[in-house]
């Protein structure tokens, strides 16, 4: 969000309301979801979303590690979001950073809000999100991938969790920010929706917006999530109508 002292801010919105990558303000980037992309995980999904490539895997319900996190009345949901060293322009040093730990926490809390964890006391449901190629919106792409992977693993849930970032760039409220819009825009607001209840289980925001802009952004985000929900459902239908495991292709 508007790095201090940064230069060369690109034009993010044309006078005709066209964004830097040719999209309209309410238009999503192309999204392709492959459920069951991995062979050894209990559930998995590969998401290509614009220039993002994100893999998610789910293991469990299984024994809790480390043991002292075990809960007597429900499964614990452990999430690990990680970026590959080569997934960003400047090589990221391997290992957990604070950003990854915060994302892992809010994503785990989002899933805890919909998974029927009390059906599996004293177990762990482990969600792994690996960002292989990043171009803004990786936490939402990871959440979508993990949500499909949880379904692929047969974990009972109230609903799938579509997610998208809305925000403000070039003065306009837009959906699904790309990297330039994220870097040089005015606000970024990732969110995840429970479609059936219309409630949000993930919501973060950084930047600046008026209350009116925020209202618009929330509506645009809900609308975007509903579009993504369709793609998620289709990916799961494809998974179970085709016998062989789909290949991951670029």
């Amino acid at each position, binding site marked *: 969000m508007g790095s201090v*002292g940064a230069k060369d801010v690109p034009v993010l919105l044309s006078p005709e309301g066209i964004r830097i990558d040719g999209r309209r303000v309410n238009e999503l980037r192309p999204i392709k979801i492959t459920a069951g992309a991995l062979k050894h995980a209990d559930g998995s999904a590969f998401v290509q979303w614009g220039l993002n490539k994100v893999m998610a895997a789910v293991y469990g319900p299984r024994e809790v590690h480390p043991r002292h996190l075990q809960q007597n009345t429900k499964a614990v949901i452990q999430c690990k979001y990680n970026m590959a060293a080569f997934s960003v322009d400047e090589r990221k040093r391997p290992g957990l950073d*604070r950003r990854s730990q915060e994302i892992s*926490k809010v994503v785990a809390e989002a899933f805890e809000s919909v998974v029927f964890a009390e059906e599996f006391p004293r177990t762990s449901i482990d969600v792994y999100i690996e960002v292989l190629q990043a171009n803004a919106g990786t936490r939402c792409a990871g959440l979508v991938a993990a949500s499909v992977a949880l379904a692929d693993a047969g974990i009972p849930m109230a609903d799938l969790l579509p997610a998208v970032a809305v925000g403000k760039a070039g003065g306009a409220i837009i959906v699904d920010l790309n990297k330039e819009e994220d870097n040089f825009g005015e606000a970024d607001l990732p969110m995840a929706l429970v479609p059936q209840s219309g409630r949000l289980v993930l919501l973060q925001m950084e930047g600046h917006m008026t209350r009116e802009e925020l209202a618009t952004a929330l*509506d645009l985000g809900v609308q975007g999530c509903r579009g993504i929900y369709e793609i998620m459902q289709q990916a799961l239908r494809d998974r179970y109508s085709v016998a062989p495991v789909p290949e991951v292709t670029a």
Partner: protein
Amino acid sequence: MSDEVTAEILTTHVLELAAHGKRLDGRGTDEYRKISVEPGFVSTADGSALVRIGDTAVLAGIKLEPGKPFPDTPNAGVLTTNAELIPLSSPIFEPGPPQPGAIEVSRVVDRSIRAAETIDLTRLCVTPGEKSWICYVDLHVLDHGGNLIDAAQLAALGALAHATVPAKRFGIAEADYRLEVVHYPAECTFVRLGEAIVVDPTFDEERAAQGRLTIATDEIGRIVAMQKGLVGAFSPDDVKAMVERAFRHGEKLRAIAKGAAA
């Protein structure tokens, strides 16, 4: 009676009270606990403030040191926020590396300070690309009675509003000078208790909560940061209603921080 049983009974009680618009400590749903700010609590810091919200206490300390600016922002200083949820402050914290909860507090506070452009980082540049001030905001939670984010953010703001740039000590200028605070963001946290949404949750209310939302607003009408936490969900209309409440509380919180800075 085990801690878990106590917790469960309290949770049930908190939710029952909330269903009738009531709270354990007698407050209204839109009422903060007593807030106090004690600036300059630590004389070894370049700025500091001890904030109490009810029985929550957070100490913020600022240190400024010359260092190297980031390559992508050669004309700006560097702001670094760190929170320590030290085990001294609560039976629930363990010693060891920072837990996700501590990281969340520091990152949410950092986000509001940064997004509101609370301090003008370009004024912390000494020699472009070569030398700039690194401003460390260290948040020390002393007593955890709930709503750490609001207390930590208010402590950070109070400490910044009170801070001195030690330019003379580091031989960079003839005299030390006050760090100028440009904007005053204030964070305001709510939790859902059944259908009630209450502000400034206590520790027991957070444990009973079905979702938490923090909203940072500033004095020129901007929302500058939000963070949903804990298990639970909010509708967009819930969010919009909390935004209005956050702006109202923000004014009061800002006044307290400014009063402390004067």
